[in-house]
């Protein structure tokens, strides 16, 4: 059952920011994450601020070499956009890999980036560290779906498929708040538990993610997103690999390898990026980059398979991109 809350549907962004600044307020985009979150009693909310009346937050447009994606653009729109499919196929692939058709129709890009963790202890009837308890149940419990990188004190994995691709593309997030608007790289939008385990993003009270801006990459850039999950739909990534590789003839000019399903934030495999720069992607080089991607992995008791999965997936997806 949903708990009791006040529902407001502001007519302007300024009004939305005002409501969002009220302690205990939560933002409602498509609601696909929020409503389940509230229904499951993970945390309460005294006010639900619907953004659905803010038409200016909807839609995609290309403008001066940048793709601007309004936060209320649905994941389905992103997946089906000819512009995205043509220029950034990896982003379209990531969008198409999200959840299920129904959820993609309803879920928004902004909401996808602001999802709460999907750790089953956090979502379930367990008073875990993140909910104000004193234990991370996953650290010594059923942690087959948890992280192999970056898990200090809280070992969830970031659930978004879009986020790793956006990080790979060097996208920017625009945040509007009570004291004006600011722009942060999507890469810096997420917060590791070791920095602050009470939040997942840098959003301050009253701040609203309004759009994502992607600088369109040079022509000789290829992107891809590959997701492995337990079942064919309606499932989060065991591991996902987002690639954005630009070429200089046969050689890699620049590469970004970003992983989903392995860390509490979209995880940049900087070692793989470095290994790829300036090389020709032969099977041996792909394998070398894949090996670099798992350096530093610290699997938990039940998720060592994720190390194999990252290694194999990075290798295979790199070779497929050539």
């Amino acid at each position: 059952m949903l708990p009791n809350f006040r529902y407001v549907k502001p007519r302007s962004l300024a009004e939305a920011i005002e409501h969002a600044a009220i302690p205990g307020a939560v933002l409602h985009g498509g609601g696909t994450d929020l409503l389940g979150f509230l229904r499951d009693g993970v945390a309460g909310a005294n006010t639900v601020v619907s953004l659905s009346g803010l038409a200016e937050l909807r839609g995609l447009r290309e403008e001066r070499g940048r793709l601007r994606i309004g936060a209320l653009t649905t994941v389905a729109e992103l997946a089906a956009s000819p512009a995205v499919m043509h220029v950034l196929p990896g982003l379209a692939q990531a969008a198409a890999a999200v959840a299920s058709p129904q959820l993609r129709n309803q879920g928004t890009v902004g909401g996808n980036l602001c999802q709460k963790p999907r750790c089953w202890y956090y979502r379930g009837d367990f008073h875990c560290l993140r909910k104000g308890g004193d234990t991370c149940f996953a650290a010594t419990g059923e942690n087959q779906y948890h992280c192999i990188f970056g898990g200090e004190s809280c070992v969830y994995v970031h659930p978004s498929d879009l986020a790793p691709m956006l990080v790979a593309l060097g996208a920017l997030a625009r945040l509007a708040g009570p004291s004006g608007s600011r722009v942060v790289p999507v890469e810096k939008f997420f917060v590791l538990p070791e920095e602050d385990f009470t939040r997942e993003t840098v959003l301050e009270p009253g701040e609203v993610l309004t759009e994502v801006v992607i600088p369109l990459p040079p022509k000789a850039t290829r992107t891809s997103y590959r997701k492995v999950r337990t079942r064919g739909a309606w499932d989060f990534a065991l591991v996902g690999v987002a690639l954005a590789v630009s070429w200089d003839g046969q050689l890699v000019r620049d590469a970004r390898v970003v992983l989903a399903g392995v860390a509490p934030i979209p995880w940049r495999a900087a070692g793989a990026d470095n290994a790829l720069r300036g090389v020709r992607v032969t099977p041996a080089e792909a394998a070398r980059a894949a090996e670099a991607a798992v350096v530093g992995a610290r699997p938990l008791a039940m998720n060592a398979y994720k190390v194999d999965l990252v290694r194999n997936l990075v290798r295979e997806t790199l070779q497929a991109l050539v």
Partner: protein
Amino acid sequence: MGDGGAYFIAGALPQTEAPALEATPWGATEVVGHRLPRVDAYERVSGTAVYPLDVLLPDMLYAGILRCPHAHARVKKLDLTSARDMPGVRAVIGAGTPGGEIPWYQVRGRAFSRLFDEHCRHEGEEVAAVAAETPYQVFDALRAIAVDYEVLPFVVDEERARASGAPPVHDSGNRVGEPAVYERGDVAAGFAAAAAVVERTFRTSCEVHAPMEAHGSVVRWDGNRLTVWDTTQGVFAVQGEVARALGLPLANVRVIGHYMGGGFGSKLEAGKYTVIAALLARATARPVKLFLPREDVFLATGNRPANLMTVKLGAAKDGTLTALEFSSLGSTGAYPYSAATSFMASELYSCANVRTRDETVFTNAGKARPMRAPGFPQCAWALEQAMDELAGKLGIDPLALRLKNVPATAQRRGNQPYTTAGLADCLRRGAEAFGWDRSRRPRHGGSKRRGVGVAACFWGYAGGPPSTVIVKLFADGSVNLNMGAADIGTGTKTVMAQVVAEELGTPLERISIEHADTGTTQFATPSGGSKTVPSDSPAVRAAALEVRRKLLAMAADEMKVPAEELTLRGGEVVAKSDPAAKLAVSAVPGLQRQGALVGVGTRAPNPEGVVTAPFAAHFAEVEVDTATGEVRVLRVVAAQDSGRVLNRLTFANQTFGGVVMGIGFGLTEERVLDRNTGKMANANWHDYKIPTMLDVPIDQQCVPIDRPDDAFNSTGTKGLGEPATIPTAAAIANAVFHATGVRVADAPITPARFLQAAAQKEG
């Protein structure tokens, strides 16, 4: 047999008398056997079908149950007063209020618990309940109930449960009876004589039934008579248990179960929720609706136990099995049930020297319930993978190895012959439809590999009496079919109407069906155990035959043609010798005078000295991405020997449903209990992964053997629901091995498990 076939029979049931008329086997049929859509398709698709969850009564209250959040705890203090004072709350009950002491989970006179027991032995055990004007008021009131728990040590792992020093689930210990051992021949000598021996331990995960319609009831009292709309597989089972719990005469409990949204074995018995709803309704003098939220369904409405099974097989050079050893450990959860799996291992293949051992333990988890072929899919997972390994070791084709060992008799049941035995047919005809020989050739490729696998089964129960059915022919020639059996989504109503139509020549749209109502229909056992068609369709046929006999006798008078020379076709009585001589059924004067003709049909006893069993063989082709462990099922062929096919369409539907469920068992579904708290980590639709459309191949083929088993019953039918799911997962596992050389012994084969098994093989 005690291994899961007879679970739906509460004690010894009376036999119904043999029907008055001898029914000769059908030869060719006109309605039976055809591809016909469901008689209730429109209602189901349009939303006009009223499921118990849809029932709304005037003045109705809503109710909910407060459940123990701990795997094992004792309620030290339960304070219901604050909830009673909440807005809209009309009743709050729990341990200490009337009815809380009602004995529950009774086996041979011993009650292992009570309706509300202070000793909570699993997460989700019932602690208190509330009835209020709205669902939200129920929700708020449940949270206002103050409970002080003493949290106790728990055990949720079946191996730990049987170790010494494990926390006891019951004072009597964690064993559900002594291990059951079965033996024939000389096992040691059999292995000594073997040219090849394989041995491996397999594990299956605990699955939950997860029906679309949650468990629940709507109840209403009229004086001391109780009416229950229940989502159930068996209205008479619920009637009996509710009447006993409440101390009511059976005649005062009417249970209605017309439509229901899936059960798979979890709705064969009465739930506590029905009795709790009845107590709340009595306390408030209002109708009460109590349906469980999804979390509660996961926690407290049954499951298929996880099993740990070790199989050892020995065979001569030519593949003849010389010895078979099978041992199984499983958990029933906190209350008694059987987690045995060995039965199929001792009868599927011919083997003189066999030893099996089944051990069931208690754990602090929700009680297991029968789930679509209890024990058999687990057994197939282990036995059929072991057969595959044995074939590999002997260098014999896995299909040939199975055909080599087809048994002549039911070896664990006194070597009695089968009335019809379709194992060899299923293997041969399935292989032919699948293109086994061609598909079996090795193929090369990169990280994506294709492979094929086969697995077979029988199902251990065939149905039988009692069943009583009434068929009523009205003056206008329309017909009412009155039967107690539930249609749990399988098409029972449709195929039974076809049986009536076959005998009376009535068009299906002129047959109405009254079913699954203890107030208006005749006693039937629950729809489970793949036995509804073989148990009840002969009774339907007998009732229709009685009507036919009466009608033809009346028509014979009018037409001056002997009754035995008359037949019924398209609503008319027709002379066999002279098709021009005919009379509309509605014009038969005797029928007009009487208003209606009634036929009562019963299910004759099963033949003695023989065994009846349905058989199946499933063939699967998979593609495995060895880099990621992703397994895609490309196609499945399911060959099913279930006797005569009553409806080609519902037959295929049920087979495909079984295959889909088998894919979930083999690839995606597992209940996860947290090792540190004993609580379920994935009690929701998202984390408990039922296969989606993308996990199920569009290329599924059902191959019915369609050989009437006329020695068994008058419709020649055997069951289908369970043999349609038993071997699927094992066939997939064998295909995964064929594709990759990796044997994944633990179900389900998730990417994680495949990669782990692949790493172990290399490592």
